[in-house]
């Protein structure tokens, strides 16, 4: 039974107000096209979960799609600076932040993956973050040591861009997996966008390399270039010009809604094209 659907269908699975964990990290293997499609469909009130995010978080913030962000870091690194739309949304009070460290996001996701109400995390003494975010301590019953417990983070959806998937939802990630295996376990449902739809035999030949087993996955979208303008190792690098152009447009406050529409229109053809037409280099190596 194939789980292959179109990008608009997949984005349609996400409902207003839901919690989404986004795969990749910073400008690497980001589910960028999926985020653009959520904006095209006018999604609202989302809670976004990511250890360290950039473009796709900022884009959803620019579109007013975001109610809350739980994250360790949102920014574009030094080449581009801070995430202007995220920043504006938080400073205006439109977007609620649950201040986290990357590792406490991981702890909250682990609680969900492990069937626990909360997960202890080491560190966090001497930080104002736990108090601000309402993280509570328990006393370890063996040592008497105080440990912060991070409440379970159970996203409705994990949205993950991968290099290889099959129609059954098996997925393999090349390069750094970041938190993608964890978010696939922690979330209620999993949506994949994939550079390449491989035959199931590709996974059966090296089952140890399958990061996400098909039975956990709800939908697969064949979407070469789906991480752009972020990078997708080893297929394509970050499209720095496109990131810079997006940032320039969203930094000029007055032009923002219109420039966002332009940005989405610029990418629409690529996001919606059939898999045959590929802008991004596509290797068909099988290891």
């Amino acid at each position, binding site marked *: 039974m194939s789980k292959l659907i179109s990008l608009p269908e997949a984005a349609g699975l996400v409902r207003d107000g839901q919690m989404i964990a986004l795969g990749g990290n910073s400008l690497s293997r980001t589910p960028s096209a999926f985020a653009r499609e959520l904006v095209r469909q006018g999604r609202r009130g989302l809670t976004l979960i990511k250890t360290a995010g950039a473009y796709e978080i900022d884009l959803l913030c620019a579109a007013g799609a975001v109610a809350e962000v739980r994250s360790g870091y949102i920014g574009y690194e*030094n080449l581009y600076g801070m995430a202007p739309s995220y920043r504006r949304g938080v*400073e205006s009070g439109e977007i609620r932040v649950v201040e986290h460290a990357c590792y406490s996001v991981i702890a909250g996701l682990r609680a969900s993956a492990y069937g626990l109400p909360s997960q202890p995390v080491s560190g966090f003494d001497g930080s104002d973050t736990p108090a601000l975010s309402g993280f509570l301590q328990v006393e370890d019953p063996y040592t008497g040591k105080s440990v912060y417990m991070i409440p379970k983070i159970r996203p409705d959806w994990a949205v993950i861009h991968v290099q290889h998937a099959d129609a059954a939802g098996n997925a393999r990630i090349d390069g750094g997996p970041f938190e993608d295996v964890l978010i696939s376990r922690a979330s209620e449902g999993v949506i994949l966008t994939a550079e390449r739809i491989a035959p199931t035999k590709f996974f059966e030949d090296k089952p140890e390399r399958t990061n996400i087993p098909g039975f956990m996955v709800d939908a697969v979208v064949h979407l070469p270039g789906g991480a752009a303008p972020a990078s997708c190792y080893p297929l394509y690098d970050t499209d720095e010009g496109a990131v810079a152009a997006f940032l320039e447009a969203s930094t000029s406050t007055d032009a923002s809604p219109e420039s966002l529409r332009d940005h989405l229109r610029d990418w629409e053809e690529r996001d919606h094209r059939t898999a045959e037409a590929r802008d991004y280099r596509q290797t068909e190596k099988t290891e």
Partner: protein
Amino acid sequence: MTLETESEIQAARTAADQMAVCLARELHEGERVFHGVNSPLPMVAIFLAKKLHAPGSVLIEVAGSVDPRPDRLPFSTNDPALCQGAAAIFSNADAYDLFARGGIDLMYLGGAQIDKAGRVNMSYIGEPSAPKVRLPGGGGGSVVMEQARRIVIWRVVHDRRTFVEKVDFVTQSGNLTRVVTPLAVMEMREGGLELKSVHPGISVEEVTGRTGFPFDLRGEIPETAPPAKDELVALAEIDPDGVRYSEFAALRRAPR
């Protein structure tokens, strides 16, 4: 973009080289070192140290690769190029777990505000409930600062907005040993951050004037050892593209 004068550009280059060398000197042979996102100078410094005095140190970088040997150092410290030549790749969780169990000797950390007590703010300027500026957040740093054995902070901006009497928000604190800036090296002592050395051509007065908290100036403040010839040669070899300059506004490579 403002046009920088030739002398400003040259001063920034000198400062970047000095900082890269100072940061590299903090990494000792055989140690495990981590750098986070947005860390061009530490990345260059680590590869410099590995080339010079710490070839057996182990880099775990934020994209998950263990001891990569990239063909060229990328401008983004989260670039997939940093997977090249790595014999293993970690998930982020695996790397943070390593911190949590005391397995990292040294981490280089940034920070928007740093105060005398060595506390770091990467989160908010103003009140968190109604911030004047929402900063990017502490990333990994806000938990690992008390987990790594030693923390070295680097900042390419040395001014009273950065080095403040008291940070607006303590994103994290703990285990700080050094702060490296374009002007000086600070050292964490009993009473807080003190001047360890001032870079060649910089006066102690300039440093104190641009620092928002006081230093104990009763002893003599030595001059930072300038980059040695072998350090400069190695720097040019490992970073021909000038990644180390990319954090400086005067030298910033404009995005294409």
